């Protein structure tokens, strides 16, 4: 699996002085993602049964830590505020 990096921000439009929060999510070849389907059923006293299902993703193996740097074309300095396996957050002032 090819390593990937995706950036997202808390807003699409800022005003000067606001805090820009950037989330950097990365994966590598070690990341194993499994799709888990959870099924449920409920039965009343009369024997009527109703079912539902939901799907979640489980990373059964986190990616190895990667160093991430964030910059922009306006010269801002981005400070890391969180560093979790596969997800880091950075902030700067708009």
């Amino acid at each position: 699996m090819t390593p990937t990096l995706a950036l997202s921000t808390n807003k699409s439009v800022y005003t000067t002085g606001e805090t820009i929060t950037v989330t950097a999510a990365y994966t590598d070849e070690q990341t194993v993602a499994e799709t888990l389907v959870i099924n449920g059923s409920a039965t009343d006293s009369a024997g009527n049964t109703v079912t539902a299902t939901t799907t979640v993703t489980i990373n059964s193996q986190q990616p190895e830590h990667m160093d991430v740097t964030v910059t922009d074309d306006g010269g801002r300095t981005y400070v890391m505020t969180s560093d979790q396996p596969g997800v880091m957050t950075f902030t700067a002032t708009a």
Partner: protein
Amino acid sequence: MPIRPLTISGIATDAEGHRVSASVSVSVNEPTMFGSSVITSDGVNHYDAFDTLFGDIKISRTYCALNSDPTPYTSKYAAQDVSHNAASAVSIKYNPIDVISGSKDAVLSNFFAQFKPGKVRWWTYWHEPDDEIYVNSIFTSSDYKVAWAHINSIAEANVPANVDARPYLCVMEYSMRPATKHGPSSPRPFDGMYPGDFIQSIGFDVYSGWNDKTPYTISPSEQFDKLFSIGQQYGKPICIPEFGCSATPPTGVSLTRTQWITNALRYIKSRGDQISFITWWNDQFSDLTNDLAANTVWKSMCVNGWPGTP
């Protein structure tokens, strides 16, 4: 309010040195900044005066004289902008032929390399080239544009990565008027002075006309509409790096300087166009030091921005 596109980029590197990159685009609304000129020739620390006169200026307009060493700006006034958390609008001036020859590359490289982080560092080359090109034939439109592009390439190569440096063009509002109404007698086409789309704001120095040889006054609409049109045509915000007015109105005109400033600001605000910054030309006939009413208005703009408009 100018809207500036911003591209945020990230690079992730694993333990083996493999890299992967990504980017995301956002926009930043940038309120118009209000400030004043800084006269460097006498060495006076004008920020001391500005703190009293205009309160919290958001941007200073500093001039480096023709063929001068820009060290006074880089060594003194740039640091003052940083300490006051103000943006900068600085001009440099070298003969286009000298720039094109490369003889100014070293001084220019050093100039840009010393730009300081913080607020935006606006810079311009040979502000008001109008007369040099279209009146006195000091240099040509072509040479001016080539020199501009050369300087911009030096800026892009030398401005530190953590500095938001932006080139702005600066010409005379007067040049944009039709000849029939207090305008120049011969054409001064804007596109003859526009060096290219690397320009990030189009500047016009605007004066009331009250200190002209034959004083006159024109309406805000006559003065500003054409400037906004040019900004829209080129897809750029505009700025007013020199905004000034003398104390005495023309004979028969009942406006005060304060009223002229107020009328202009109200009109500009009503247009809602994108204005990067406006700096008052606080020198000579336009010095507001002893004009309490006028400097109160300008102080309100510097401190409050557009909400401070009388």
